[in-house]
């Protein structure tokens, strides 16, 4: 319940405040969102598996976002930003799919 409240509050804050993203951080925002999505789906799966842990979720979320942004930042500095972003998206995408498949098995038992 509190999770859904948190989500809704976040959406409302985002819509109301409409914070301006600093130009320097703009390229890292989408990849950070994908990394966060991975952490969120992992948490949902862990919750359904009965393994959920608040602290692990917080740490995995923050480290995911930070590392994804860092990889893209490094890639930009090395001139392979686009390729590294693709790599990050592929890996995160596979994880998201695997986790969503597990969630699906939990919900539909199939």
């Amino acid at each position: 319940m509190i999770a859904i409240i948190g989500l809704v509050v976040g959406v409302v804050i985002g819509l109301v405040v409409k914070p301006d993203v600093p130009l320097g951080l703009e390229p890292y925002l989408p990849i950070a969102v994908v990394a966060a999505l991975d952490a969120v789906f992992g948490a949902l799966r862990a919750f359904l598996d009965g393994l959920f842990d608040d602290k692990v979720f917080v740490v995995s979320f923050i480290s995911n976002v930070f590392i994804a942004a860092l990889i893209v930042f490094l890639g930009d500095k090395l001139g392979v930003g686009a390729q590294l972003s693709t790599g990050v998206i592929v890996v995160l995408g596979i994880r998201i799919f695997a986790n969503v498949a597990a969630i699906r098995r939990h919900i539909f038992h199939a």
Partner: protein
Amino acid sequence: MAEQQLPERVTMGLLPYINAHALDEDYAAAAEQRERTATGQRRKVGVRGAAVLAIFAVLAVVAGLQTSRNSSSAERERRELISQVKSQRAAVTEQRRTIEALQGLNRRLEDQLFANSGSSNGLLEQVALLGLRSGIAPAKGPGVLIVADDAPDAESDRNRVLDSDLQKLVNGLWQAGAEAISINGERLTALSAIRHAGTAITVNFTSLGRPYRISAIGNPDQLPARFAETTSGQAWLDLQREVGLRYSLKTQSSLRLPGADVPQLRYIEDENGKNKFGRDEE
């Protein structure tokens, strides 16, 4: 066996490994630890988890807003540019029209100026006549249209129209009494040259393509006959017969010839040593 001692991330491919370990192993580790400390209870989402979810929502919404804002601003810039291009183009068209109008006005005023002052009346006529004779002014009148072309399936220069053939043709026409001649729309003046440049014939330094259409203004009743009597006319009849050049002559009741570009006269002077055309000698 050695194989079994290897860790999974070595034996598995990268993608299957990622697939198999999609869930952070920390969750399992934390759960194990909980069991060991015997709290044993399934944990619920706490305040920290909710806060992180809220941060996630903010991030996602901001990213979405930013993307849509960027795309709309790019679209706006594009429209802005298009409208600028359109307005500038309209301005150019407008200015061009103004130029045309002013040029027309200029010409009218010039004519009026000359016409009003009685003394220059003759001068105006003289200018017009000189323009016609020298080929600078456009001319119209009756005459003949000659179309000359290479022989069908010409293989060598022998059965192609050469610059010397055209020169002969034009000289014959002058001799026969033509008053103005143009080849493919290039008016011939006293300074025009008919030359081969590479494979093409150039007149007034403009390359011509075959067929060559020679328009000559003159008496349409006399011009063809008198041309046939000249040596050039004879030569062309020979060319037609011997090497198969194509040639046809038709009289026309009305021909329009364009004017030639005004050449810059540099050395010609009148009797008093002045260049009439206003270009100061250094």
